[in-house]
């Protein structure tokens, strides 16, 4: 059989590989060769590499157990620096020339692994080890166990460089979505397509065909592979059909919304351009879904069933038939069903010696067992493998006759030499997607598996996923469900009755479930381990321990043993685990139920989830009309919501402190310029506009004169402040509201909600006009002088243009609204012009003020200036638990109004408490020290812990005007504590502070008129 020296296990003929296309690759640095069409796993086996990985917890040597995504062991790291991908299964990697892969979980190497010492100490690492260690002693956990475990455990390494690949997303609708391109899926897609329905057929493999690629079958008089080729060709030609090979449907959500990841290349290091992405995330909305996801073979749970060289019978069959690889030279098959006998026959036909078939059943009388006997294979029924010889590769087995109803062994053991063990414990339908939508399942006793029973969505299923493991059944169901799906989606099949697709296959016979195979010693007492979930190293003994310790609910057992976690998501281990649990607590499997299968079905790279939404495309970036000017001046920006706002404008050599000090001084001494365009603006019109504002704000609005402006606080019904701002009355029925920069959308929502749901009788219309008006604040003693130079048609004299009024006129040649509002305490004008005139306005003001050293300032200076005046910032002095009274702003809460939002809550027991946190000023005893915002304030820093905390610092700055630091704070009963000496215990010092009034400069407000 073996031909080439470089691939000793490669069969001379057969397989779907291209022997004319050799692929050179390395595994753990060793140069090897395979062929195009190989998976990495089949190429490794062709080179007789069985030991490819170490297990997660015990670091036991592990081999290749499966041939597809069900593989729990053979996880590898694909190379290529920035292209590296961790934790791929060797069975799902297409081999290509130049591929580099490494084992994961192995240090320093796969064949010598120091961490396998965990295996020697496994008595001390039982199930629940983490919980048991963590619960009594956090210290032991954090200082001793966790660092050791973290170092030794963990799978592959995440790439450390930015991902060089490109990804995108596509959104599609279809009538019939068929998941899985095996015989059932192909038949379903074919029938649905005939009706003219839009059909999508997705399969995770690079080629369609599913089991037909690995089994010797005849369909429609053709070989399985030829039938697949013919059907795929027909589907490719159909205009309404989209074929998605290399595409894994990983999530199935409400209303037939499915997510699939398409690997667009046969290599993982291609697809770096947006025109040719590496992977694509498909968002599919289907009228009908046909699941044809097949089934995974289950391992048998016997002693040391994880040794390299032990694989699923169907996987061995795949390696022989699909890949032309003999995974061993002398095999033993261990089974509980007839179907697996076919694998032994296929291996024998390929030249592999089959030493013996070991069957746990009393007798095996089916067609396939008879064929095996006729082929001269020794069959031992009522027998079991009780021990496996060889650690890094199977060298032989010990066999015993079973006794006591299969629960124990009898007689003397018998040694059989072999280098390959095939196992088959029956089949588990791939119900993961079905379960994502909370479909109900039923336990099929005869087939010993869960099958879909009652869907939640418009879901049909066909073939092995529904327990029809035979080809004929899959084809019949595929045809029927494809037609049903099309019909349900509104398409009439045009060819009359359902066609029958003829096929030939052996009689797969019956199965007899045996959940744990006994050994000479009781399970869990000897060194031998009966693995259930290979990837998480969960054993039968662990599950029984979980049951004994009271974790007998399946979800508890899962968390206690880790069975069903990880990238594996219980693909091969789930049914065995819950059957063993059911047995341990003497409960029916149907009653135990399964754990929850959650998306994703297989791991999805973050890159493809992000798609194009990276960097500047992650979130909209909002800038004002003056942005170019700010950037040209070298402004430093901060994000306020989605807005970019100048934070400060550093001059050469200045840090933030120097720049802010200079900007602050300019506003207090001469004049500064602030881009205030980002403040939210809402145009409110209608006959009931004033009444509406009267209900929304805490103060009175009905009598506000046209041409005047008023500041308002908005509260929720619970009395807590959520936004503030000024609103101008432009006309009898017309107002312009400003909101905080970050709160604009929330306030708009809030106004609309009340107008639509509580007060639909009010005739009021709200329009967001934030981006219609550029607003520039000119602030400082010279503000009027500067503005006069660019505005000739408004009388700016204080008596003609009082504080909190506005005038319409012309500024810098543009129609403008000028408002006398001050957030700095200085004489200040806010000039609004149509958005597109913003930059011209700014430049005109800047030029007009150059003589006085007009200084552009950013949000940091704005914050300092307002804090010096004790003005609040919503979101800084408030956090959703602060009332106007807490801030000492009773003056803005109307006593006369009968009702407004929040009013009733101001008299609740909780809001009238005297010990509520109240806004105060703080002065540090060390005037040069700026308290960190968020610092806690206490009465006695030496009190026994936990020290009662009185409150916290909300704003804290160096104040150039005061020549010292200042802070605002929310302190319990703070207003009654004026003059008290309190403390801020910090990491490296305890700072004494004195409580003062929150208004630090100009409490009389003399400066605002210039």
């Amino acid at each position: 059989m073996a031909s080439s020296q470089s691939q000793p296990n490669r069969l001379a003929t057969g397989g779907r590989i291209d022997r004319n296309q050799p692929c050179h690759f390395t595994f753990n640095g060793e140069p090897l060769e395979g062929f195009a069409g190989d998976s990495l796993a089949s190429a490794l086996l062709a080179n007789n590499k069985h030991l490819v990985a170490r297990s997660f917890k015990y670091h036991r040597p592990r081999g290749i157990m499966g041939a597809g995504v069900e593989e729990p062991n053979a996880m590898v790291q694909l190379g290529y620096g920035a292209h590296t991908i961790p934790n791929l299964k060797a069975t799902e990697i297409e081999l290509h020339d130049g591929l580099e892969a490494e084992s994961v979980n192995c240090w320093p190497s796969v064949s010598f692994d120091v961490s396998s010492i965990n295996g020697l100490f496994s008595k001390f690492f039982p199930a629940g080890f983490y919980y048991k260690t963590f619960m009594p002693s956090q210290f032991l956990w954090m200082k001793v166990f966790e660092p050791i475990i973290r170092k030794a455990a963990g799978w592959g390494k995440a790439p450390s460089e930015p991902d060089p690949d490109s990804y995108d997303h596509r959104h599609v609708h279809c009538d019939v979505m068929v998941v899985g391109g095996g015989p059932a899926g192909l038949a379903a897609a074919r029938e649905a397509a005939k009706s003219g329905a839009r059909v999508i057929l997705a399969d995770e493999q690079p080629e369609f065909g599913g089991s037909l690629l690995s089994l010797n079958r005849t369909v429609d008089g053709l070989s399985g592979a030829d039938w697949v080729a013919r059907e795929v060709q027909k589907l490719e030609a159909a205009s309404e059909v989209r074929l998605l090979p290399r595409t894994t449907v990983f999530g199935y959500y409400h209303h037939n919304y499915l997510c699939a990841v398409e690997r667009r290349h046969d290599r993982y290091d291609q697809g770096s351009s947006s025109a040719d992405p590496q992977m694509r995330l498909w968002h599919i909305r289907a009228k009908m879904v046909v699941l044809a996801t097949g089934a995974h073979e289950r391992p048998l749970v016997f002693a040391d069933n994880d040794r390299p060289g032990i694989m699923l019978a169907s996987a061995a069959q795949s390696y022989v038939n699909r890949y032309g690889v003999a995974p061993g030279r002398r095999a033993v098959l261990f089974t509980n069903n007839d179907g697996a006998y076919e694998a032994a026959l296929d291996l024998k036909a390929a030249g592999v010696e089959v030493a013996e078939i070991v069957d746990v059943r009393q007798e095996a009388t089916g067609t396939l067992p008879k064929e095996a006997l006729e082929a001269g294979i020794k069959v031992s029924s009522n027998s079991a493998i009780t021990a496996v010889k060889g650690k890094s590769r199977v060298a032989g087995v010990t066999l015993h006759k079973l006794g006591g109803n299969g629960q124990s062994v009898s007689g003397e053991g018998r040694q059989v030499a072999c280098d390959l063990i095939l196992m088959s414990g029956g089949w588990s339908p791939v119900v993961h997607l079905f379960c994502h939508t909370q479909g109900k399942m039923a336990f099929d006793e005869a087939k010993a598996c869960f099958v879909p029973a009652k869907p939640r969505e418009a879901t049909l299923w066909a073939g092995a996923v529904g327990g029809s493991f035979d080809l004929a059944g899959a084809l019949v169901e595929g045809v029927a469900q494809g037609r049903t799906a099309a019909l349900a989606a509104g398409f009439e099949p045009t060819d009359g009755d359902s066609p029958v697709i003829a096929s030939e296959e052996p009689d797969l016979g019956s199965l007899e479930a045996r959940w744990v195979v006994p050994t000479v010693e009781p399970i869990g007492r000897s060194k031998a381990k009966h693995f259930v979930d290979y990837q998480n190293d969960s054993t039968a003994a662990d599950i029984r321990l979980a049951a004994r310790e009271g974790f007998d609910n399946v979800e508890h057992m899962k968390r206690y043993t880790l069975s069903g976690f990880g990238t594996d998501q219980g693909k091969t281990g789930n049914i065995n685990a819950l059957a063993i649990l059911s047995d341990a607590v003497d409960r029916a499997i149907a009653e135990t139920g399964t754990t929850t299968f959650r998306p994703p079905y297989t791991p999805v790279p973050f890159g493809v989830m992000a798609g194009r939404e990276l960097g500047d495309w992650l979130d909209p970036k909002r800038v004002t009309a003056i942005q170019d000017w700010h950037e040209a001046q070298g402004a430093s920006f901060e994000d306020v919501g989605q807005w970019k706002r100048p934070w400060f404008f550093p001059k050469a050599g200045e840090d933030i402190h120097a720049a802010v000090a200079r900007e602050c001084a300019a506003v207090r001494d001469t004049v500064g310029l602030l881009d205030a365009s980002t403040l939210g603006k809402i145009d409110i019109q209608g006959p009931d506009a004033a009444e509406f504002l009267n209900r929304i704000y805490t103060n009175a609005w009905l009598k506000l004169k046209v041409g005047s402006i008023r500041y308002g606080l908005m509260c929720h019904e619970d009395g807590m402040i959520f936004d503030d701002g000024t609103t101008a009355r432009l006309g009898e029925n017309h107002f312009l509201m400003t909101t905080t920069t970050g709160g604009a959308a929330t306030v708009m929502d809030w106004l609309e909600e009340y107008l639509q749901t509580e007060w639909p009788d009010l005739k009021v219309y709200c329009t967001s006009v934030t981006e219609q008006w550029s607003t520039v604040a000119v602030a400082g003693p010279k503000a009027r002088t500067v503005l006069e130079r660019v505005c000739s048609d408004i009388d700016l004299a204080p008596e003609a243009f009082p504080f909190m009024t506005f005038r319409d006129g012309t500024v810098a040649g543009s129609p403008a609204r000028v408002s006398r509002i001050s957030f700095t305490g200085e004489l200040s004008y806010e000039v609004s012009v149509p958005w597109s005139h913003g930059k011209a306005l700014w430049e005109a003001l800047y030029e007009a003020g150059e003589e006085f050293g007009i200084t552009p300032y950013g949000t940091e200076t704005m914050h300092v200036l307002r804090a010096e005046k004790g003005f609040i910032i919503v979101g800084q002095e408030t956090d959703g638990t602060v009332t106007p009274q807490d801030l000492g702003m009773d003056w803005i809460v109307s006593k006369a109004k009968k009702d407004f939002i929040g009013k009733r809550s101001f008299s609740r027991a909780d809001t009238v408490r005297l010990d509520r946190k109240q806004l105060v000023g703080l002065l540090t005893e060390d005037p040069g020290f700026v308290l960190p915002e968020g610092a806690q304030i206490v009465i006695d820093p030496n009190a026994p812990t936990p020290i009662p905390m009185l409150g916290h610092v909300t704003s804290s700055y160096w104040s150039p005007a005061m020549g010292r630091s200042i802070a605002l704070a929310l302190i319990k009963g703070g207003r009654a504590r004026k003059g008290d000496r309190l403390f801020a215990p910090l990491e490296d010092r305890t700072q004494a502070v004195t409580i003062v009034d929150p208004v630090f400069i100009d409490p009389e407000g003399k400066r605002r008129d210039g």
Partner: protein
Amino acid sequence: MKIIQCPYCGERPELEFSYGGEAHIARPEDPAALSDEEWADFLFMRKNTKGIYLERWMHAAGCRRWFNAVRDTVTYEFLAVYKVGEMPPDLDRGEG
């Protein structure tokens, strides 16, 4: 992701909608007349039913209008939608 029927725009993906909690909790006509307990009940207490629940939704990325929905909080199924100010439709659900 569900598809939600907006009574004004028709079927739209869930992403376009925002949730508004339990429906038919009218703001009291005269809050001052309420005891603290009654006011607290209005402010904080919601049925949070397991099963059929009447709740408010808003088509935020569409027509921006509020509407009401009858939804099963166990299955997440929308059984009906109706406009603000209307009463929930009689649902003859049968077994299902």
